[in-house]
Structure formats: C-alpha cells, structure tokens
C-alpha cells in the first residue's frame, strides 16, 4: 500500500508554496536561502513521485524504470549544495561590508 502520487504532488506543491511565501516575506537572507532550498526540494519530491508513477506504467509494459526524473533530482541535490556554498560566501561578503544579513541592506542599487 503506497501513498498515492496525488498526495505526494500535493505535498510538493504545498512545500513549493511555503518556499515562495518564505522567499517573498522573510527579511533574513539565510532564511530566504532556506526557502529556496524548500522549493528545490518540492521539485525533487515531484520528480521522484513522477518517476514512480511513470515507472509503474513502464514496468507493466515490460520496459525498464523511468530514470529521467531521479537523475535530475540527483543533479539538483548536488547543485543545491554548490548554490548554498556560493550563496553563503556571498552573504559572508555582505556581512563583512555591512555587518548585517538583512534583505533590505541589499537595495542600494535602484532607480
């Protein structure tokens, strides 16, 4: 008895929504970064759920499992780490100059 795909997708959507909400409302850069990670994970969850769904059909057809989704998910996990590294480095650079990690502090460049 497995969880229905729709549930997984729904959960992912909720995660994505939380991510977006956090991204748009939070004022701390670190939290913003975390929100983005949340969105990435929502994508990952959907990918994996989708892969399961499609694989079921394919396995019934006698073909191999569908690996496209999981492959992308793995790439995402890897790249997310890199992004986090770069992001933190940038935040540190910011902190060095301004002693703050607030989002408002990066709005000097404007019209």
């Amino acid at each position, binding site marked *: 008895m497995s969880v229905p795909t729709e549930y997984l997708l729904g959960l992912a959507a909720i995660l994505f929504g939380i991510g*977006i909400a956090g*991204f*748009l*409302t939070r*004022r701390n850069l670190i939290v*913003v970064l975390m929100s983005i990670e949340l969105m990435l994970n929502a994508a990952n969850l959907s990918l994996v759920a989708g892969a399961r769904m499609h694989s079921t059909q394919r396995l019934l057809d006698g073909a191999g499992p569908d690996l496209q989704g999981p492959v992308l998910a793995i790439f995402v996990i890897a790249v997310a780490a890199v992004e986090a590294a770069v992001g933190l480095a940038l935040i540190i650079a910011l902190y060095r100059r301004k002693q703050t990690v607030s*989002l*408002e502090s*990066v*709005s*000097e*460049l*404007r*019209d």
Partner: protein
Amino acid sequence: MESNWLWLIPGLPFMGSVICGALHFLTLRARERNPEAKGPAALAGPIAAGLVGLAFVLTTVAFSAIRGEDRTLLQSAPWNWIPVDGHTVAGVAMVVDRLSAAMGLVVTGVGFLIHVYATGYMHGDRGYAKFFAYLNLFVAMMLVLILSSSIVGTFVGWEGVGLCSYLLIGFWYDKQDGWPAEAGQKAFIMNRIGDASFLLGMFLLFKNFGAFDYASINAAAEATHAAGASTGQLALAAALLFGGACGKSAQLPLFTWLPDAMAGPTPVSALIHAATMVTSGIYLIIRLNPLYALAPQVMYGVAVVGALTAFIAGSSALVQRDLKGVLAYSTVSQLGYMFLALGSGAWVAALFHVITHAFFKALLFLGAGSVIHGMHEEQDMHKMGGLRRYMPRTFITFLAGAGALSGLPLLSGFFSKDEILGHTFALGGTWYLLWLVGVGTAALTAYYTWRMVALTFFGPERFDAKALHPHESPAVMTLPLVVLALLAVAGGLLGLPHIFHVPHLLHHWLEPVTHAGDAIRFGEHAPHLAAGTEWMLLGFGALIALYFADRGFHAHKSGLAADEAFQARGGALARTLNNAWGIDRFYTRGVVATVKLAAVFIAVVIDQLGIDGAVNALGRGARRTGESLRRFADGSIAGYGLWMGAGAAVLVLVLTWMGV
C-alpha cells in the same frame, strides 16, 4: 510665313531693362567709392526711351504689313515653352494681327512718350536707372501680353506687368513709412486674386478644347456654337477669365488697389495704371470675343460689373482732394465703361475707348505729374489753385485732356463714350437701366473733371508762392504733353459715328477679329439704332457733359467753399463717397483682418498648441511613463521576486487554461 523679328518688339524693351539694371548696379558701385558720384545712370533714360521708340517703329512696320485685306496677321515661330505631357506643348508665338497691332501701337507709342517724359520727371532720383529698368521691363511684358498667340503667353505678360506694377508702385519704398511698399503689395495681391481665377479659366478652357492658343480656342468656340453644343463649362471659363480681368483692370470687387497704386511715381501711374496695363482685361475679352459671345449671361454680368464700377468709382472721384486720386478713381470709372461696352457686345467701342482713354488719361496723369513736379511733390488740390499762371503749357494741355475725359463734344472721349452708351441703349430691355447708369456716370465724370481743373488751375493760390516757387516743367516733359493733347483732341477721328457718313476706321480695321463674336452674339441681326435716335443720344450726351462740366467748374473755381460745404452737410453720403463706398474698408477690416486672425489662430492654436502640442505630448508622455515606472525598480529583492512570481503565476494560469 514666320516673322521671327516680331520677337524684337518685346525683346528690345527687355534688353533695355537688362541694360538699365546693369547701369543701376554700376552706379551703385561707383557710389560705394564716392557717395556723390553720378555713375553711368544718366544713360539709362535715353537708352530706355530709345528702345521703346524702336519697338514703336517695329510695331508700325508690322502694322502697315497687315493693312491689306489679303494678310491680316504676322506670326513668329513659337517658343515651345512647357511640354505639358508627351504630346501637348504650351507654346507662345508672337502674333501681330489687327487687334494686337492696335494695342501694340498704343502701348509702344504712349509708352515712348511717357518714357521721354520720365527722363525729365525722374531726373536726379537715386534710382534713376532702376526706374527705367522696371519701366522697360513693363513695356516688354505688356507687349508679351498683347502679342502672345496663346493664353499662356498672355498670362506670362499678365503676371509680368503685375510684377512691374508692384515694383514701380513701391519704387519709393522708404517714403511715407513705407506706404508705397504697402500699396505695391496690395496691388500685387489683388492682382493675384484675379490671376488665380484666370488660371482656373485657362485650365477649364484647356480641359474643353485641349488648346492654349487663341486661334484654336476661338475656332473651337465657333465650332461649339455651330454644333449647338452645351456651353455651360465655357461660360464658367469665360466668367473665370473675367475674374482675372477684374483684378488686372480694377473692376468691382477688386478695384481698390488702383487708387493706392498712385503711390508710385506719376509716369508709372500714367503708363501702367491708366493707359496700358489696366486695359489688358478688356484686351483679353476682345481677344476671346467668340468665347464670350457664347455666354450671353456672362456678358450681361460683365456689363453690370462695368456699369456699377463706373458709377461707384465716378462718384468717389467727386470728393477726392488728391489730384492723382481723382484721376485714379476716374480711371476705374472709365474702365467700367469699357466693360460695359464689352458686355454689350461692343468690342470695337471698347477698344476705341481704350485707345482714346490711353491718350487723354495718360495726358492728364502726365499733366498732374507736371503739376506735382512743379509744386515740389504736393498732390493735395486744396493746397493748389491758380496754377495756370505758373505753368501755362501744362495748363493748356491739361484742359485738352479734361475736355476729352468729360466728353465735351467732338473731343475723342465724346465719341468713344457715346458709342458705348449707344450700343447699350440699342440692346433695350434691362439694358436701359445700364444705359442710365452710364449716363449718370458721364454726368459725374464731367463734374469731377472740371472740379479738378478748377481747384488746380483756377481760384486763389492756396500755397505760399514765395516759399514754394511753382514752376513750369522742362520741355522734355511738356513736349509729350503736347503730343498727347493733340491725340486726345483728335483721337475721335478713329471712330466717328456712322451717322456722320464717314467710315468708322476702327470698326473696319477690327472686322477680322470681331466678326466671329458678333456673329455668335447677334447672328444676322445686330441691334441697330435708327439715325434719329442716334442723333438724339449724341445730342443728349453732349448736353449732359456740357451742363455738368459747367456746374463742376463754376462750383469750385473760386475756392474750397463747395467742398467744405459738402463735407459739412453731406452726412452719410459724404462719408460713403470719401471711403469710396467702404469697399476698401471692408477689405482691410473684414477680409485682411480675418485672414490675419485666421493665420494667427492656425499658427498658435492649431499648429503650436494642437498639432505640435500633441507631438510634444507624446515625447513628454513617454518620459513621464518612464519616470513613473521607476518606482518599481526600487532595488528590493522581495519586490522583484514578487513581480517574478506574479509573472510566473500569470503564465501558469494562461498556459494551463490553454492546456485544458
């Protein structure tokens, strides 16, 4: 056979113009070095007069060449001027036929006399050579107008004389706060109004007949008559061309420029604004007589305009104080007579009056010029009086001119005017009314002419003789007066009434030109007056002239009392006459002011605020939108993210909807 030497007739004065122009600039150069230097300007007068004289001789030669019955015209090779399209060329050739020869003689002859006179009159003027350059150019253009084989060529001359008129009226452009320049401008523009109408008439003729040359047009008009085809468009063309004539010949409603044109030097007034240019409208209509004959309604209109102009201008002449002003209104009035004649179908009478008028009016103007010259540029008759003692030769010749103008019996004006009125009377019906106007005008003419004579030459001296020293003009000015006086007296011989049982010379001469028009207009039965009626009319005319001449002379010979009394008690009538029936005022206050207002309205409200405002508003609008967009680029990451999110959401919604 082509007679290319005919080109010389306008060509000589044109050359003269170029030469005199060059002399003018040479003189200017000489003056640059030494302000008092004379330079070669003095040569201009004799050269100019000589060349016009030469043109007169050539015209006479041409004239005598077409005297016979076998050959009534000479024609030069055409100048292929404007190729209209691949096939048609609007060309011009010089033609001397019975009509243009007569006009040409008047123009060159009177022109020559006036040139001679002007060498004296303009003596010492700083623009002496320039004056003759303009005057010669005028004669050249007038000859082009007359001698052209085509209506296009006539238009060249038509506008050319207008230009010379403009330049010559404004000759003393720096005098009197630039009034001469204004007057010149007015003349040019009023003429242009007529010219615009002329152009349309020309185009309409071309549209109907596919030709510009008079021979074809007249032939086509005859053919139209013969075929009994519709003449509506042709009548319109005739009316439009008459509009042109109204401008050039100072008829209602376009006559107001002529009185102002007196701002020019007096020889100009004599030559252009009395003897020649202003009669070109009459010339044009005679030239196109078959066309006009096709349109009796237009001819009636011509007659009405002529009669009204004659009366209005004649009455205005009654109250003028300016010597030249009287003559100017009188000219307008006499031109009205000529149009009355044309309208009545009396082509010959019209030309007859053109010729006699050229003689006596040129004489009067030159005489007036002599008076003004002798009075040191004084033109106000109220400041003259008793001048017959100071300038006797001028006085005598002036009397001859005045007599002719007022139609005193047996002088030239008497016969020509009588012929016109006789023709009008003969048509009967409503034409009696026009005849009556004509007779009334004759009375006015006699009155104002002799008022003028009285105020100028008789009565007490109303100036300081010691300070002013009025003097007789030199011989070079009085000699032309004498010649013209002789012509003014004897000019009537050209067209004695047939009741005198002598041949009407002019009628006979013009027969080849006018028979087509006569045939179309009246057919076989031209209206004819019984000999008794004609005698009666003749006597009546003489009586009127004599009586009113007497009244005019005696009322004014003792001074200004009559004038002052009229001004004091005349009331509305005096005001109306002083303002020449308010037509000029209507133009300046009504038309000119409206146009000016419209121009300012268009330039400021419509153009600057409206159209350009819209253009600039576009630019400003773009800028303002840009400014207002700036607040979205507020530098905030969350804000940018929100826009991104919203954009993505819209995309998702729209695409999902498409997917469903």
